[in-house]
């Protein structure tokens, strides 16, 4: 057995100390040592984007980062995305528009989308596609995800934005 190593870092806005076997990935540390199972895995090889979390505000694949590398850094997982009891606008729109079908890829998409909106508050559809191109979703065909990002972005900009009727009911 490997002897454990301890690190200190900021996790979802809280100072955190945790000891774990040094070969563990950040994904494993989050899920197994910190019981934050909101972060999912689809391949554990850096191929699908499912395990994305934010490290110092940038999206990274937690399956490709060693837990030890989180020392002193700021990590945000899906559990830290809501503002207290209030859902993040992206979480609201993902839920309301059916952008989460099975929901397994949703945490990764949500965090990558949050990063996008931090940098680009008014992204074009093409910019959304580009930003989310490293995340695979097998359920939605991505369209409801784009619409959820667009609606959340508009709300975060303080604009009123009506989702086109055909997005909900289809074309006439």
């Amino acid at each position: 057995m490997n002897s454990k190593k301890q690190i200190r870092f900021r996790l979802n806005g809280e100072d955190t100390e945790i000891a774990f076997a040094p070969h563990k990935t950040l994904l494993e540390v989050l899920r197994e040592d910190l019981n934050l199972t909101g972060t999912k895995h689809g391949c554990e090889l850096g191929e699908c984007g499912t395990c994305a979390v934010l490290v110092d505000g940038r999206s990274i694949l937690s399956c490709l980062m060693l837990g030890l590398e989180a020392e002193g850094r700021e990590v945000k997982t899906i559990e830290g995305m809501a503002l207290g009891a209030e859902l993040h606008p992206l979480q609201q729109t993902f839920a309301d528009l059916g952008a989460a079908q099975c929901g397994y890829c949703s945490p990764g998409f949500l965090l990558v989308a949050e990063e996008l909106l931090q940098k680009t508050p008014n992204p074009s559809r093409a910019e959304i596609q580009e930003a989310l191109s490293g995340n695979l979703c097998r359920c939605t065909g991505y369209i409801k995800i784009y619409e959820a990002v667009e609606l959340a972005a508009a709300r975060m900009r303080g604009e009123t934005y009506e989702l086109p009727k055909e997005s909900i009911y289809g074309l006439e």
Partner: protein
Amino acid sequence: MKNPKSNSLNLIGKPFRKVDARAKCVGQTKFADDIVLPRMLFCKLLRSHLPHALIKRIDASKALALPGVFAVVTGKDLPIPYGILPVSQDEHALCIDKVRFVGDPVAAVAAIDEDTAFDAMNLIEVEYEPLNTISTIEEAVLIDEPRIHEYGDSGNVHKKVSLEFGNVEDGFAEADLVREDVFFYEGNTHLPMEQHAAVAHFDADQKLTLWSSTQTPHYVHRALAKVLEMPASHIRVIATPNGGGFGGKSDPFNHEVAVCKLAMITGRPVKITLTREEVFYCHRGRHPVLMKVKTGVKNDGAITAMHFQSFLDGGAYGSYGVASTFYTGALQTVTYDVPRYKFQGLRAFTNKPPCGPKRGHGTPQPRYALEVHLDKIAEQLRMDPVDIRRRHLVAPNSVTANYLRVGSMGLGECLDKVVAGSDWKNRFSGWDFANRKLPYGKGIGIACSSYICGAGLPIYWNNMPQSGVQLRLDRQGGVCVMCGSTDIGQGSDSILAYIVAEILGIDPFDIRVVTADTDLTPVDLGSYSSRVTLMTGNAAIQAAERARELLVMAVAEKLGVPIENLSLAERRVFDVENPEVGVSFAEAVVLAESKFGTIGTVGSYTPPRSPGKYKGSGVGPSPAYSYSAAVAEVDVNPDTGIVVVERVWIAHDIGRSINPLLVMGQVEGSVYMALGEILMEEMTYRTNRNVVHKFPSLLEYKSPTTMEMCDVKTYLIEDPDPNGPYGAKEVGQGPLLPVPPAVANAVYNAVGVRIDEVPITPEKILRALKDKARGREARYGPDTVPAVSWPDPLRVLTPAEGGDGTEMPRVAVHS
């Protein structure tokens, strides 16, 4: 139509969020791998690295000696076979005498953690004696020995089917044109983002609980009782929310049995989570199918007869394969009128991961073949491909030649919508390639399809309902709906809540939904064959109407208002003539409980009987059929062969949307999955004797990202079906079906080459373009099918010929 008594609908048809949507967006949903129990051990399966071999010896002593290892089980510990279909109980949790594909499990380890289990797995010694392999349909048909299984119709042929409805030769004789084409549809896999996972716990009272990412907890429950030789009443199967299913979690799996056995041996909870590579080996995905279709038509495109042959590469086990085989021949008749129809199907065993049901189960392959074939016929007849379809649609409320009863049929309207939306008339060149309306390289193609809304018959023969719902109302006004159905992301939990809330006049988010737990919920057969909304919906309506009945009887008595005057809405029960006269919903429950005792009701659903009574008529009948039409617009680069699907117009006959937002999501997701199948996804294996999967990873098994996904223009056609809840039909699978052939037809329209093999890769397009430039046939695809001696077809007179749905007696032929 099964409508509740209220005249107008308050909730049905409204775009609510799903009842579990928020939990999924905050990371609270507990998938199987998120479950952690005290003292839990971890399991790994040792899988065969050989595709076909006898097991001579297994020695686990070194693994057992490793510190932290608690148990190792092998095939002899689990000798009882199982399988999803009663006719193919050909799987063992762990192989006993031989392995049949690379990835077939031979031993299972339980250890203190995953790393130790992995190390222990590698210490298990297995001595194999390799056998020759069977790797293709052609080999399976030609080579009888060694047999992969000791059962089946012959050698390595698992199943042969031969059915004839009317006399097709008479039909071909009447035709103005008879055309024959050969197609191949490569296999592909579900690729759910969640890898299968399961946790088993055997408690001190000898009760076993399994949490598993399964679409079919009821069938897993049955399989466990059989294999573990335990009373089913001592086993509880809980399907955790599935992180994507698409049919890939519909079989009872080796790993589910293995963790149960290990939990029973060790007395500790045991978890397994498959790696992505292992998910590729579990497979049960789309069968590769080689197809030959021969159709006779009149000059106006009316079909006089069709003969369809399909050859399925089944992989190493039966799985749903017998049903899949029938499905490749069942639904050809429900879109266009086919007065005489012959189907011959063959499923082969090969040393590859087993195939099974994937979204559209057995029907995307023949639908692709049929719709491209029809496009070729239209060109020969110089007909617009829209007209050849539109003019010969199956009539609503009719019975097809193979005895499928069609109810509502909205395909005509679907076609009209996509034709208008895509501006088809101004963009399709009428087969005149010299006077193109679109520039060379741009193309447009059309196709139609239909799919079942649940299977008419259950997988194992019985007279019980296919779906049950139980409602419990408590005196505080709480409503709990319980049903065995499994939410795989499609929103089946939410459908239960919307329907019960509609009838009881409460908010869907007031309702507690408890599903997919064999201890707590009445049986529903599972999330497959697009059955859930129709069947659980009807069962929920019955349960809720029975509860409503009790409430209004008690309230009517209390208020002195006639029962028929009472309405339930906005969490109240009130007099429609005097809306202020009424009680709150919770008070109504108190009144009912005071009068009748504890309030609980049940509802169940059994599909109507099928008019088909011949042997083999069990696959294809459905309470209703959904219909879809699609137009695809493509850009084909003739220099690179790269196809970009720019837009798909799709119209889907949903019957009625219970929740249009969820319907749209299923349509868009189906288009997406179809794009993957037609353009890039393939389960392919090295063709040497090792039969190793070429790329069991998410990186190299190509699937569409946001950059490949096309624009989708969706139309929902609402033509309520009398058998659907509020008229609803399915949407989870049907909209996938027209897209692959629409794209293939558009590719032909763009560059004038026929790609008769799925997926349509750049290499195939370039090859066909090169052949075309050399004056050869502008086509890529198979030319022939294997020569097979088919059994005499089972002959059935069609309804038009006065048949009664039974087969004709076989007549001995004397020469």
